[in-house]
């Protein structure tokens, strides 16, 4: 508890003579106010002044509010100190870097907006931008649909439910290095590759067999396929969780009306899952924009260099930062990425509010 000091009645009296009229005035205002928002605000001010009066009377050093603040800060401190030093600091520095020219070693120079101007003419940036957007547009809906379908299936009362759930989560927990290696072997571009062999036996002409991640026109498709496969289990779990929260009475009412399975899904499950879908979409979109390792592992090959057919924004950032040491430019690209994610998240928030 706060320390008490010896109370000097004269000082207390002086403080009270200021605070008490203030309180009376605020209370009057609050009563007269009709706008509920402003009323609430005034109410808070009243509380605060009361607290100050109480503090003056008892002579405690900290007001209750300050004390509450301190307790809250003590909760946040262990994480926040680490976070601020090791993440927030560098992040802020990186944003400043977007307006500088720096190779990581020599002195920094102010560059204004030239880093941003440089993007417009950079073919690799434009390709990366295009591929990232394509990747997101393709991956988000497919992953959502696949995850939802899986969740609805695995929410039924069936035998071996836990087994199926665990299996669906397998690809997500597995190490990327390992599964990408397996995936590339299965989707080997050779005519004798396992997947191509199946396609061939299904009657596809040997000449038109895709070369998957080595094929300019198929590489993004392969990447999307892989990432849907790898991540749908994760989002399925979130959907499963959402499904547990739906009130069973809704379905009973629905059954009484004689609705079929499809109608149940369409009129109850889907609307009830909207908050979950919102959450999943945001996390998924952010993760999609940040994609890099999947593409690198699948299409990087021996040199680890991505071509224009497969390059994505974060990889572009990586190569500019570490191969060419244009740290300022890399930060500027990151800023573009950040603003895109921000814009999409805001649109989603809007949409959510509209329909909620």
């Amino acid at each position, binding site marked *: 508890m706060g320390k008490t000091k010896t109370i000097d009645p004269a000082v207390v009296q002086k403080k009270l003579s200021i605070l008490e009229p203030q309180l009376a005035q605020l209370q009057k205002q609050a009563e007269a106010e009709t706008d509920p928002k402003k009323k609430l605000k005034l109410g808070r001010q009243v509380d605060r002044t009361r607290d100050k009066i109480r503090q003056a009377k008892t002579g405690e050093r900290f007001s209750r509010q300050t004390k509450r*603040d301190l307790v*809250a800060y003590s*909760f*946040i401190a*262990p*994480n*926040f100190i*680490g*976070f*601020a*030093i*090791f*993440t927030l*600091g*560098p*992040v802020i*520095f*990186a944003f400043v*870097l977007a307006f500088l020219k720096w190779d990581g070693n020599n002195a920094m120079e102010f560059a204004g907006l030239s880093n941003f101007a440089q993007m417009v003419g950079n073919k690799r940036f434009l390709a990366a931008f295009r591929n990232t957007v394509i990747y997101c547009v393709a991956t988000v809906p497919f992953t959502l649909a696949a995850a939802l379908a899986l969740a609805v*299936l*695995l929410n039924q009362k069936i035998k071996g439910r836990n087994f199926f759930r*665990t299996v*669906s*989560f*397998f690809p997500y*927990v*597995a*190490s*990327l*290095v*390992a599964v990408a*290696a*397996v995936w590339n*072997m*299965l989707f080997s571009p050779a005519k004798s590759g*396992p997947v191509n*062999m199946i396609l061939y036996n299904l009657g596809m002409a040997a000449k038109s067999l895709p070369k998957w991640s080595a094929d300019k026109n198929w590489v993004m498709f392969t990447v999307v396929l892989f990432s849907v*496969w790898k991540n749908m*289990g994760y989002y399925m779990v979130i959907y*499963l*969780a*959402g499904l*547990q*929260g739906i009130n069973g009475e809704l379905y009973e009412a629905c059954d009484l009306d004689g609705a079929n399975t499809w109608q149940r899904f369409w009129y109850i499950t889907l609307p009830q899952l909207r908050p*979950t879908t919102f*959450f*999943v979409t*945001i996390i998924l979109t*952010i993760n999609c*924009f940040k994609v890099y390792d999947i593409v690198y592992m699948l299409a990087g090959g021996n040199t680890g260099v991505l071509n224009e057919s497969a390059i994505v924004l*974060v990889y572009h*950032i*990586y190569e500019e*930062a*570490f191969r060419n040491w244009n*740290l300022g430019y*890399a*930060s500027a690209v*990151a800023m573009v*990425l950040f603003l895109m994610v921000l814009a999409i998240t805001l649109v989603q928030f809007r949409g959510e509010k509209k329909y909620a």
Partner: protein
Amino acid sequence: MKIKNTKTRTLRVILYVVLIALALVMLVPFVWMLSASFKLDKDVFIFPIEWIPKNPRWQNYVDIWSKIPLMTFVLNTAKLTLIVTFLQLLTSSFAAYAFAKLDFKGKDLLFLAYIATIAVPWQVYMVPQFMMMRSMGLADTHLAIIFLQAFSAFGVFMMKQFYEGIPTELCEAARIDGMTEYQIWYRIMLPLSKPSLSTLTIFTFVNTWNDFLGPLIYLTTESKKTLQLGLRMFISQFGSEYGLIMAASVLSLIPVLIVFLSLQKYFVEGVAASGVKG
């Protein structure tokens, strides 16, 4: 009545067929991996695939321990993962409590700082971060990886989402009973958040266990390297020894699967609480 029964039964059958097909799609790469790990390199690519090798080559699982210092890598990774997960759980749930249940000055601003960093790709601030760590004498230490991973914004965000789902009345009642905020966190929030703690455990565990780029930049001494670095080193040095690569990959999956299986019953509930609140 009878008609309905047959209909449900057919639906059931279809459902199982679909599920088994899906499970196969999910499992095929792993089964292939497992089967390849028992083969000679030259037999790995033979088609049609021989799912159960006639002469399983257990030697692969013996050889990988001597080809690279796998034991050191496993121990390093285990150590890092355990410490990071522990710190992450402790500090995140602590901070999340304040964000969810306490009212204080600067709350929104602080929270915004957390959220904003989630959308920034790590590659952007990797270099400044590396230089800072090194100036603190942390380059090539495990401590650097720990600091890198243990204070993530994601953990705080997720735990906050969950805590907001716990009725505030519980805290109010506890306050009236004279509990301090620390006691409320310890005696009410923590026990109630077992599911979401499990969720965070798995996420952190998987991420730290599988992290590649962080250790690549920070850890240069071989005796400090992690399993994923080892795996990658292995692939680049012994690119054609598929049997061995697959054996190493299979081994790297085991700990993650154990953690997942032992926590999965909480897991679904955990995401439920934090996910729905979105």
